[in-house]
């Protein structure tokens, strides 16, 4: 995917600035999804985005900024999409299932997310700013699942005896592990889904009619 920005002057409106930033970040996400972040060169991103290296550096000072902000851009966009999806689902249990199963879907954007997460996590071991960013997004992901579990409890679909935060942590950790196997191709999506279904039955103590 190529974005020809053809910029001739930099005194543009804030809206255009924002749009350009988004386009560059989107482009960075696809470059990382394809090649990984390890060998990412800013020149390659500039080329792919159809802009000059100078302009890219105007928006993003360092390569690390670009990688971290691309990850955060991806996550923010995915969160917004997730909220849109959830708004169309009435059943509280189906909402829990939706966010967990989203991570196992074969959507290209989801694969892109897996690559970004794994590249970020790798660097997070050595860099504080990456660690803060990835731990923050990870905590939000667990928090979202915990909230959805709590809502399903309010609706009487999951027993009140379950601790939503602890159950969410266990479910997300498992989905994060399972998803890795799917992305690498050592596990089929069908088996992954079945595996997570069985886990939901047990961990959330679902009643007979809600079991899959």
């Amino acid at each position, binding site marked *: 995917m190529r974005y020809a920005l053809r910029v001739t002057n930099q005194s543009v409106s804030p809206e255009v600035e924002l749009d350009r930033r988004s386009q560059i970040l989107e482009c960075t996400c696809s470059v990382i999804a394809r*090649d*990984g972040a*390890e*060998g990412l060169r800013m020149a390659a991103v500039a080329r792919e985005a159809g802009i000059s290296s100078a302009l890219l550096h105007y928006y993003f000072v360092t390569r690390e900024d670009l990688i971290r902000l691309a990850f955060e851009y991806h996550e923010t966009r995915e969160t917004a999409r997730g909220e849109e999806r959830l708004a169309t689902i009435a059943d509280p249990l189906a909402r829990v299932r939706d966010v967990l199963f989203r991570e196992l879907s074969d959507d290209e954007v989801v694969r892109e997310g*897996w*690559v970004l997460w*794994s*590249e970020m*996590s*790798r660097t*997070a*071991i050595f860099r504080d700013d990456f*660690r803060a960013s*990835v*731990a923050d997004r*990870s*905590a939000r992901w*667990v928090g979202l699942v915990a909230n959805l579990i709590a809502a399903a409890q309010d609706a009487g679909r999951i027993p009140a005896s379950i601790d939503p935060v*602890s159950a969410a*942590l*266990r479910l*997300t*950790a*498992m*989905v*994060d*592990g*399972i998803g*890795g*196997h799917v*992305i*690498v*191709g*050592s*596990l089929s999506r069908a*088996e992954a889904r*079945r*595996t997570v279904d*069985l*886990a939901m039955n*047990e*961990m959330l103590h679902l009643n007979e009619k809600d079991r899959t």
Partner: protein
Amino acid sequence: MAKSSIEPTGKTGEETYARILETTAWLIARDGIRGMRMSHVAAEAGVSNALLHYYFASREDLVSRAFDAFYEKGTDRYRERLAGITHPVTRLRVELLLSLEDHPDNRLDWMIWLELARDAMHDEDRRTLYQEKAGMWIADVAGQIQKAKDAKFVPASVDTRSAALRLIASMEGFGWYVLIGQIEWDEAVACIDQAFMTELGTVGPPPPVGVVHP
């Protein structure tokens, strides 16, 4: 995958060989699989480039053997700690808990494992390696669950492979969360213990003192 590589002979040879593989694993954790250089391995392990190339036909060969040794080493480390534990449920439980205890080896092990998973997303050879090692791990845990089922310590209704897969995936998730600083080791241990009981529908006899932290 082993090509024309030389196997070490004699005690000194074996020690050097083991040291090279250990150094490689450590450098993979630090620099990544792609960032790992054979010349760095030689320097860090205190061997000549010639000797390194005598043992390992190529960089690929070194990486693949380092992961073989990494898997073996993990198994050996557990074997020592599991000595004397005969109950199949306790053995598996202790093994799972050990993989998430607060120990420098665990940090390194998870870094190496996640690096393999990361690189497998981009590289065909690594994908094969990851699939092979993950397959061995799942088969090992599944075998232990089956043993516990055969001995009637675990309900027959438990789906062996599915439970093994979930336990391993959970460990990988918790290992990851610890590395990125989202949870602490003791939380991970508590979570995996809960997962264990949920999956196998049993608590079994308590693990020996000194294995569980919380």
